[in-house]
């Protein structure tokens, strides 16, 4: 028999996945954003493959960060507006597990597709071949980290009318360690160094974020969204 805590996790994971399935257009927009903005880069900088190869890893990481951040705003906003967030807050559940379920759903809908599509972007931006595997591995771990941190920001700004810009201001400094190690993993791979080192640190960050962020999110939701 499953405990009620894991029930809360599964229920909210399933619910959020079903919601994104019903609004596919909304759910796919971070991914489309990710691909569309990457075409601006050759237009803005240069189409020269040698120059693009130098900046490709960094640009893919920055774009993944922006796409995750833009979509994090909707994590609690809909639930807050239709009142289901309040129902969750007054339910006798431990808040941490449903929150973790929601964040996991968010990652499955944004971070995972970004990771899967990233080789295409690597191709378009002429990323050196040795960089593909490190890029996918670091994006998989890193976007999960970004989803968790973004959820903290989304919880902080959920009751604001114009939360989007505020969310960006609040979470951007927290994202910086992730992008440093994410970018480094790819760069190490391209340079032929042992890229599992920075990847392991990304994994450690993810482990810490899984442990701490849901607590912070649950606390913040209780503090700020009930007036």
């Amino acid at each position, binding site marked *: 028999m499953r405990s009620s805590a894991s029930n809360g996790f599964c229920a909210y994971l399933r619910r959020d996945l079903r919601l994104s399935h019903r609004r596919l257009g909304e759910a796919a927009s971070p991914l489309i954003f990710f691909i569309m903005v990457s075409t601006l880069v050759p237009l803005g900088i240069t189409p020269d493959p040698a120059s693009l190869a130098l900046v490709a890893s960094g640009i893919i990481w920055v774009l993944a960060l922006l796409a995750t951040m833009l979509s994090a705003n909707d994590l609690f906003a809909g639930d807050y507006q239709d009142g289901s967030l309040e129902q969750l807050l007054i339910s006798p559940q431990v808040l941490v597990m449903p929150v973790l379920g929601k964040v996991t759903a968010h990652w499955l809908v944004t971070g995972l597709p970004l990771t899967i599509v990233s080789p295409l972007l690597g191709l378009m931006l002429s990323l050196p071949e040795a960089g593909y595997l490190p890029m996918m591995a670091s994006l998989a771990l890193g976007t999960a980290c970004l989803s968790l941190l973004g959820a*903290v920001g989304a919880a*902080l*700004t959920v*009751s*604001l009318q114009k939360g989007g810009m*505020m969310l960006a*201001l*609040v979470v*951007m*400094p*927290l994202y*910086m*360690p992730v992008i*440093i*190690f994410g970018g*480094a993993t790819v*760069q190490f791979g391209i340079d032929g160094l042992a890229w599992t080192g920075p990847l392991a640190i990304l994994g450690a*960050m993810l482990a810490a974020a899984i442990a*701490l962020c849901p607590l*912070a999110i649950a*606390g*913040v939701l209780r*503090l*700020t969204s009930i*007036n």
Partner: protein
Amino acid sequence: MNWTWFYRLGSPLWFYQTTTRWLPWLSLLAIVLLSTGLIWGLGFAPQDAKQGNSFRIIYLHVPTSFLALAGYFLMAAAGAIGLIWKMKLSYMIMKSAAPIGAALTFLALFTGAVWGKPTWGSYWVWDARITSMLILLFLYFGVLALQYAFHNEEAGNKASAVLALVGTVNIPIIYKSVDWWYTLHQPSTIKLTSAPSMHPDMFQPLLVMILGFYCFYVVALCLFTRVEILRRERKTTWVGELAARSSYEVESDKK
């Protein structure tokens, strides 16, 4: 155990009255220390063998950098006290610490840039310490912006207190990752740490300046907090009486 002293600390009225008594002395101390340190450091400390007179900006740069970081921890601690013991006063202190800290961080970056031009040949270098100071400035901006974004003051207090605490957990991580990133990317032309340890003649005025800046910080924090207290407690009787008394004094001054 008797905890009344602790709860008295949380009373805005008590804070206001105590700082009214202490502020003149503290301001005097800050002025004395800062002017001594400035005159000593700028006028009498020996020149640096390599940097000449340009090193003297250290007497502003180091104290502001110290307080920029210390101010963040103070802000987060005040926020934590507010969340745990639900003290109004500590939220007011937290809110007041944010703009002062942001201003000091900006000053630290600015004096660093001014110092960087003659010594390194450029205003901005992506050095580990500079970059982490810049991220600290962004953290301050986040707390400030969040505080003002809420119409509900209570919610704004709590949200920015949590954000300050999350930032505190992150500061060591940010610092270490930027440090690591710097050792990876930085060409070895510029070394911040290679400056020789300071001569006592240069160090003593710096110590006076740091103490002076700490006093100045406390004075500024008290002044900001007093304004915040008056604003938030404007409907209480004691603020009303205070306002009536001061307007009476203004009237009698005119006569």
